[in-house]
């Protein structure tokens, strides 16, 4: 029988080889070599470079205010996005789910922005923020619309959030809608017969039934939000100054447009990876517990 076992492995390798080759070259090896570079002072060109140990990491986390600011800005962004994106998507999904006739129409409208490339969305909104809203403010005397949407760091944080939500809510909404459709109608009816109002039914019946969707949407938002780049690039370019710079932008700048510090930028990438990993693991742990309770 050893021939059969041998054949099993040959077949396994034959079927997985095409995928493994592409995967190894463009994902696995870059991941590993990026980690390796992160311990060096390599500039990307010079064949001679030296080992710094943890030097890059210490520098990034202790002596690099720009990096720390971008890290802090990204964390704020992630937190706000997780809350707002999921609340908004869930509210939309619940409202749409209750419409019998117009369900398809609203689903289509709210999902449409998701189809448009993030960078194109950001350009469209730049037009709205920089030209349309100020003009409306002038004509209608609603001063609020005329504020510096992209020029004032405090306001542009919210402009970035608005565009990100516009772009991303539809996706989460679809997942929530699919989950809501899986909740048996009889359960909701039973709750209503027992005297629960719409809100109580939602809280005690519907939400516990869709915890898996909440877990997934939190996970997707968390992962996506840490990688934010295009929206900020298109809207503010990280400015004014570096006030709206996100981590990914900081890494890009370090490696490609600043000093070509490949090694140092790689260390920052590893820090990003570690943060995403830690947050994801914590989130999945916490949510899994909730799922078991429900």
């Amino acid at each position, binding site marked *: 029988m050893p021939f059969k076992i041998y054949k099993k492995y040959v077949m396994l390798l034959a079927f997985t080889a095409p995928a493994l080759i592409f995967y190894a070259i463009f994902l696995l090896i870059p991941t590993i070599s990026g980690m390796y570079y992160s311990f060096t002072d390599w500039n990307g060109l010079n064949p001679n470079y030296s080992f710094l140990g943890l030097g890059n990491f210490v520098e990034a986390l202790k002596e690099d205010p720009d990096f720390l600011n971008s890290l802090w800005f990204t964390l704020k962004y992630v937190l706000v996005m997780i809350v707002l994106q999921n609340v908004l998507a869930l509210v939309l999904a619940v*409202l749409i789910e209750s419409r019998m006739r117009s369900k398809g129409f609203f689903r289509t409208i709210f999902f449409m922005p998701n189809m448009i*490339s993030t960078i194109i969305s950001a350009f469209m909104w730049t037009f709205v923020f920089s030209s349309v809203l100020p003009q409306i403010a002038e004509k209608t005397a609603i001063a609020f619309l005329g504020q510096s949407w992209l020029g004032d760091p405090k306001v542009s944080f919210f402009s970035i959030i608005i565009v990100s939500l516009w772009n991303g809510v539809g996706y989460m909404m679809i997942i929530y809608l699919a989950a809501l459709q899986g909740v048996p109608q009889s359960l909701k009816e039973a709750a209503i017969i027992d005297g629960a109002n719409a809100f109580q039914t939602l809280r005690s019946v519907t939400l516990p039934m869709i915890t898996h969707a909440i877990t*997934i949407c939190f996970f997707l938002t968390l992962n996506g939000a840490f990688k934010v780049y295009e929206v900020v690039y298109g809207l503010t370019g990280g400015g004014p100054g570096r006030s709206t710079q996100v981590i990914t932008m900081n890494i*890009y700048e370090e490696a490609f447009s600043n000093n070509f510090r490949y090694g140092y930028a790689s260390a920052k990438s590893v820090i990003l990876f570690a943060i995403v990993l830690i947050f994801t693991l914590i989130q999945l742990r916490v949510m899994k517990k909730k799922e078991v309770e429900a």
Partner: protein
Amino acid sequence: MRLKKANSLLITLLLCAGAIVSFFPIYMAVINSFKTQGEMFASFTALPTKLHFENYSQAFIQTHLLNSALNSTIISFVGIGGIVICSALAGYKLSRTRGKMSSAIFFLFVASMLVPFHSIMIPLTRMAKDLSVQGSTYGLALIYIGLGVNMAIFLYHGFVKSIPRELEESAQMDGCNEFQTFFRIIFPLLLPITVTIAILDFLWIWNDFLLPLLMLTDVNHYTLILSTNMLFGEYNKDWSLILAALVLTSIPVILIYAFFQKFIMEGIAEGAVKG
């Protein structure tokens, strides 16, 4: 009963208000793309008095639209084709084979889904340079295969479980070898999940910005998104031209959306449940 009706009306109004806000930027982009600069400064919200198609012809030329759309199409199709074939093969076999090696390979793919693209973009650029695939349309498509197989394998792996083993066994009785069995019997049965993967990957690759920005150096190889980005940089405040380009760039995905709406929605839901 009355209260219920009032509630229902309120919900409809809320949703309509949301829909208007959601549609507002697209509407603004479309109506203003037909105006001259002067008309815009008079009023952004008014409808255009006359349709100025010059903006579109100008944007069409400036973005090298036909050429960049062709590049985007090649990259998407080669990328998706590669992802589908490689992942279907691997996902199927990994799902059917038991044992430590099979689990290890599967784990390797799945775990890599957590690696953020930005964490590998620097060494990836290096790798592309070393293999001289940087700057080439097909080279970029190959990179998408490498980055896309993990998610697709995961989806195929889950889907294969729903296909009865008896089908393969009878095919092999009839004298098919493993590859014949796969391509003749299994692959056609994977169609629903293949459609899902193709759509999700199409939206990703077609709309992607950063990877083409890093990989493509020659304007002739630019994707549609890159060409539009370049235009935005060059004609920063010439909104009539830029808006026309933004609308042109979005038309293909909106058309795809119109045709495949049902599949896209199902695909997202499916991808999420499995993911």
